[in-house]
């Protein structure tokens, strides 16, 4: 079938078998290989992408279902010469070893920070109505769908917390101006 996917702001026409997953479409047909396949079952999070800003496992959905959607992958999150605050924090806190889960972690963290900003509670949130205060256990819980076999979790959680804190420091000032 013919389909047009909008990935990282760019619309591209593709000829696909209707059974093609979004993950395989990205990797094998659009050559966006930053999104990784760790299990193809939605159990490891290595294929996390943003679908209209919301994080999903690209292996669990068919490409044919997303003609009207905005898809963002790791390649689209930051320009090559400017790594971005989250990426810099991962580097600083050594949030990885082999790097295979890293794109999924970065994309997932990007989506997660947005969810927290929007006030979505998690399984460990003490109050479902209150503003979300990210701490270690909140971040770990919200990132528990992204497996890191090297177990760099401490660094990952610290990197995300640092990024969240930076954003919090910056935002009120911007609001004041």
């Amino acid at each position, binding site marked *: 079938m013919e389909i047009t996917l909008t990935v990282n702001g760019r619309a591209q026409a593709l000829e696909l*078998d209707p*059974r093609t997953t979004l993950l395989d479409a990205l*990797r094998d047909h659009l050559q*966006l*290989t*930053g*999104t*990784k*396949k*760790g*299990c*193809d*079952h939605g*159990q*490891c999070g*290595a294929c996390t992408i943003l679908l209209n800003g919301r994080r999903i496992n690209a292996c669990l959905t068919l490409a044919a279902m997303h003609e009207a959607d905005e898809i963002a*992958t*790791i*390649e689209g999150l*930051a320009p*090559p010469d400017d*790594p971005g605050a989250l*990426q810099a924090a*991962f*580097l*600083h806190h*050594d949030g*990885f*070893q*082999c*790097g*295979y*889960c*890293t*794109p999924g972690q*970065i994309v997932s963290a990007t989506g997660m920070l947005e969810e927290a900003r929007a006030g979505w509670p998690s399984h460990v949130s003490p109050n479902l109505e209150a503003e979300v205060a990210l701490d*270690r*256990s909140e*971040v*770990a*819980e919200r*990132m*528990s769908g*992204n*497996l*890191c*076999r*090297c*177990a*760099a*979790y*401490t*660094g*990952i*959680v610290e990197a995300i917390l640092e990024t969240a804190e930076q954003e919090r420091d910056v935002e009120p000032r911007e609001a004041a101006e």
Partner: protein
Amino acid sequence: MNTPNTYIGGHVERVEDARFLRGAGRYIDDVTREGMLHACVVRSAVAHGRLVSIDAEEALAMPGVHAVLTAADVTGEIPTIPFRRPNPKIGPYAQPVIARERVRYFGEPVALVLADSPELAEDAAELVLPEIEPLPAVVTRDAALAAEPLLFPGTTEDNLAAVFTAGKGDAEAAFAGAALVVGDSFSTQRQTALPLETRGLLAEWDADAQHLTVHGAAKLPFFNRRAMAKMMDLPETSVDYVEHDVGGGFGARGEFYPEDFLVALAARITGRPVKWVEDRREHFAAIAHSREAEAQVELALDASGRILGLRGEMFMNVGAYVRPNGMTPVRNCAQFMSGPYRVPNIALQATAYVANKTPAGTFRGPGRYEGSFFIERLLDMAAARLGLDRRTIRQVNLLTNAEMPYPLAQIRPSDGSRAETSCDSGEYSEAFHRCLQAFDWEEKEKLDGRLIDGRYHGIAVSCFIEGGASGPAETARIQVAGDGGVEVYVGSSAIGQGLETVMAQIAADTLGLPMECIRIYHGSTTYLAEGWGSYGSRATVMGGNAVREAALALLARFRALAARRLGVGEAEVSVVGGQAVGPDGAVLDLADLAAEGLAGEAKFLNSDATYTNGTAAVHVAVDPETGRVEVLDYVVCDEVGRIVNALTLHGQVTGAAVQGFGSVFGEELPYDDDGALLVGTLADYLVPLATDYPRVRCLSLESYPSPTNPLGAKGAGEGGIIPVGGAVANAVASALRAFGVAPNHLPLSPARVWALLNPPD
């Protein structure tokens, strides 16, 4: 920013990470070739049986399917995969690269489908119908030892692949004169390393040049090239193994597997590039398993808690065949069970038996994790019997630097240079004290064994050594490019451990250059004529010292060339910061002499192991209602000789510790009575998540440089996992002391802990 000569030991962030953060890492499935075919392996769904026939007709009729290869496509004898540590007994148990007349495990390759896409290949593989007459499966130790049935009838007389002894002193006399003998049965469960990237290969055959290139190398490309060349009947120089980014190794990835040969054969037969990437279900049955061990061991002590002797026997289920590294956990468990302790008399026997399961290999800390669990349990049992503090019984037995080199037990039959080995350096009580101090043992001890808010609290301490620096050699070549950049080629492989950073640090410091000038090339046979790789915690020691020596050779050459250019004697030239300065102040840069062949090569030889030592302490809380154990605090302190990069070291130690918790609490590869593997997804095999073990603290010391190498470094990639089993099991025992439980069998899953508390009547 670091200045030259201060990178080693400085705070240096990893250089490989920039590409990982952008999604620009290039792993094997990201590599493609024009016109390539995709392979799917047809695997036996029967654990043990006679392979009667394979019907591929329907599969071959599918459009887009090019071939279905079976044993019939292999000319002559089916090649078997060579051993890393040959010994006379294991020969008949080598794994053939494809099953011909008999299948011996669930998942054994019987055919390879080649098609235009991976999806087509997978669909076609389902249509390939092997006819297999089932035979009774050997799953348990009893069945294997009873030889009912034999796995290799007509070839071997039993199912025992090897029997190793680890010996030292006179154990019998030591036990006869002991004040106390403690002993029990222990076991650790079958597991696998589970790298997040599944295995994959891409093979290219150049018929004109008669040259084979295999992409997807890891761990030991040079050994695998030798093996492949022999199997393919090609000269070694006609085969290359090329490494790309590697999504985790942990001991399992990168060994020579059946698929290495099959994918290469497919490329050779079809003349087209052939790619194969495992799916996760396949991975569980195909990659090496490890850790399935049972032990019946005893410790002899005097009244003050000094160890007099260690004896007993272990049985390891090594699966259906002996894979390249299948004997490593078996012999390691026997040789290293004594750990960091002074054990003058040892008589241990380790038996490797075959059974109809996936063949075993290594997983981080192979054999050492198992052995540490056994002896640490024995020490706590002995302390209780002698009325000693659990710290004291360790303290009096920890090795001192004055005793170095301290010989460990000898392995027989000898299996190479490590059959005899000695601890190299260290005052082992130092890491012990630092660990307990950071852990705050005295304060936490007040909680030990107490019921607080419905949970029993327990603490424990466990000590370990980690062997590193596997010999015999590593190679490196450094050359200056036309732009003045320094290209470093090293035989070590990157398996996610930050190799490029560490090698660049060492090269930069030795050359007196900024790290930015250094480019690291590694892990491919195209770079160097010979090399070894990354296994047995060796890369920093072996590769690092090779890089250092190559850099020194390059500097010597630089001085000689500069002297000639300047027309002065070599002694008159000083070399600093990548510049040669003559007596009259004339300055030459490295780039000025690049055209004259500015290079240095080295082969660093070392057959002596390094031994990192360390101590771990853990605080757990056990819920008696559910059997769930929570790790409240975990501190590990290791002494590594020399810290090259504290950041990557810390990552290795913490990551290994968390993998250890996965090992202790959940990861398991169960089989049914017919030999079918009961795990197929990550929902069945529970590895640690971000939420699971957040409280791991580690500290590292560099008080006793290893005398085995000029850097003074000791291998440190595996130690973090070694003490976890013993530490956690002892903490659970301590927490539940009121119930007198003996957590001697791993994993300590909630169900098992609950069963310890609720024994059947």
